[in-house]
């Protein structure tokens, strides 16, 4: 794994506003990397700093082994797919795709036309070359933007929330297609998104950002199963937090969880460090199981009351109240043939596994 981008101590100020706070990050060659975070977290600023549209107030941006300080966007080995796609309205599809080839005097007119056809092929827009820019749908505009960037064979392709303007079906289709394209061309993709599901589906690695800081960099599984703090855990999927007290044990901590009881937790389940004293225990909705009609359990069982039920079609979500826990706990059950459904006010027996727990500082 060779690093293609290295950021060291990158800071960005807009007047008094501190948009990027001491960002250190390494992105590898051929990686599908996502910058994930809520709006205003600095992920787009970071992407624009890599592209050269913003200059870091401090710190070093290395791209392909070269310091990018003072290098304008047109001299960087990056190309960008803009959020609005930025398709030139006065040019047709082929002219848009060929825009960046003007300076390639080594290519004949025919060679350029062949490259354009090839790029359009790659994004599934064969025969669209003569189409006017305004006659394209959202998905097609995005494909043109992709072809226009990829035709220049950049070292890094930057994607600024490219899927946010598409409807759900189209988005899912493009997610699969982007992934396929990335594997096919083998260059580094950096995707900015606020959609955690999208980041999980598509990325090799994800950097989660809050308030201009990188909170965690990890592969999707690690990020989901071992978030380093409550903020990350809360942002990636749904997680319940239960108040607990924690004491150090041989290879981890022993926790006493309100409403759930005692459990021994291994050290790797404390990704943010092992707390002693007050702690917060996280558990995901799908990691708990409702037991119906006296169904036995081998593991631990907590007893609560169903406060609310939400039917999602494929799943049913329950909010269950436990004694000593102020917030109701959310758990999800797959809707299987013959599986009963609990009503509000019913007693709920909840089976849980200590291996599914994550322990945080309170």
């Amino acid at each position, binding site marked *: 794994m060779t690093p293609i981008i290295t950021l060291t101590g990158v800071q960005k100020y807009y007047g008094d506003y501190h948009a990027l706070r001491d960002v250190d990050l390494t992105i590898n060659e051929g990686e599908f990397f996502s910058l994930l975070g809520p709006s205003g977290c600095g992920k787009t600023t970071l992407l624009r700093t890599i*592209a050269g*549209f913003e200059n870091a107030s401090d710190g070093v941006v290395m791209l392909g082994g070269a310091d990018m300080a003072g290098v*304008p*966007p*047109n001299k960087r080995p*990056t*190309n*960008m797919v*803009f*959020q*609005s796609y*930025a398709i*030139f*309205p*006065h040019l047709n599809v082929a002219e848009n795709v060929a*825009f*960046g080839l*003007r*300076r390639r005097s080594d290519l004949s007119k025919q060679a350029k036309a062949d490259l354009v056809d090839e790029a359009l092929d790659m994004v599934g827009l064969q025969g669209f070359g003569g189409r*006017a820019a*305004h006659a394209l749908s959202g998905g097609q505009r995005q494909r043109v933007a992709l072809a*226009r*960037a990829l035709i*220049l064979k950049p070292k890094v392709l930057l994607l600024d929330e490219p899927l946010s303007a598409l409807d759900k079906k189209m988005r899912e289709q493009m997610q699969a297609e982007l992934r396929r394209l990335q594997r096919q061309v083998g260059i580094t993709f950096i995707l900015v998104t606020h959609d955690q599901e999208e980041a999980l589906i598509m990325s090799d690695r994800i950097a989660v950002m809050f308030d201009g800081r990188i909170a965690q960099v990890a592969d999707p599984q690690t990020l989901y199963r071992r978030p380093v703090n409550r903020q990350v855990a809360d942002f990636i999927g749904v997680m319940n937090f239960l108040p607990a007290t924690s004491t150090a044990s041989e290879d981890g901590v022993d926790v006493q969880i309100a409403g759930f009881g005692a459990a021994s937790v291994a050290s790797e389940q404390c990704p943010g460090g092992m707390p002693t004293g007050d702690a917060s225990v996280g558990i995901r909705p799908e990691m708990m199981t409702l037991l119906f009609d006296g169904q036995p359990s081998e593991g631990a069982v907590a007893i609560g009351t169903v406060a609310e039920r939400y039917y999602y079609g494929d799943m049913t979500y329950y909010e269950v109240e436990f004694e000593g826990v102020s917030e109701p706990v959310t758990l999800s059950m797959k809707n299987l043939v013959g599986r009963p459904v609990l009503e509000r006010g019913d007693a709920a027996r909840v089976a849980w596994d200590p291996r599914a727990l994550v322990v945080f500082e309170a």
Partner: protein
Amino acid sequence: MVSPPFIYALLLLAAPMGAILLFSFWTQDFLTLDTTLTLNNYREFVEEPLYGVLLQRSLIIAAMVTLVTVVLAFPIAYFVSFHVAPERKSLWLFLITIPFWTSYLVRVFLWKVILGFNGVLNSGLLGLGLIDEPLTFILYNANAVVITLAHAFAPFAILPIFVALERIDRSLLEAGQDLGESRLMTFWRVTLPLATPGIVAAVLIVFIPTIGDYVTPRLVGGPNGLMIANMIQTQFLKLNNAPMGAALAVIAMVSVSVIALVFVWLNRKWLRVKQ
């Protein structure tokens, strides 16, 4: 059919135009109008070189005014659109329109004061020792007409160009740079083509009324700066030859229309202004 806009168009546009057109085919027989339809007025236009000279001069002056106005207006519109903070833009546009607060006539007279033999410009330059005697090529000739009209029409050119520039999605300019072009080439390949609708509008808005301008050539044009509109006025009011005046007006209108259409067509074809 008989909707208010239609009546409005009929009364205020079609009827006067029709009247002018009809007049141009009549002739003036000393004190009475001869209402037999004839092409005599148009024949006179062709045979008498003065009319052609005046029309040609009008077209040349209007073209120069348009060129000067649009070339000077573009940087101003560009500056306001790209370099003025968004909350300040309306203030800037407001300031640009301030000259309109005084009457057109007053503004023309002010140019006389500025450009005159003992005017502000000459005394200023003399005072600074930059010239030894007053410049005379700036008043009572075509140059003075161009300067005065270019000033008068500046806002009409700035506004449509400004609007066209405002409508350009800024990410397109970033895309241009991202795809390897310098700022200058991005301006040339992205900004300018996207601003052409505004430039075309500015050209037409300035060119069309300038051809028929009457006050400015009359006041600052001198004998060599007179334009076709001055001749039309002379025909109507001094020579009491309304039919000849009407024929000149029709010829001027047709020339302007043809030139404007040719310009728009050339633009479509060569500059590819796509809406």
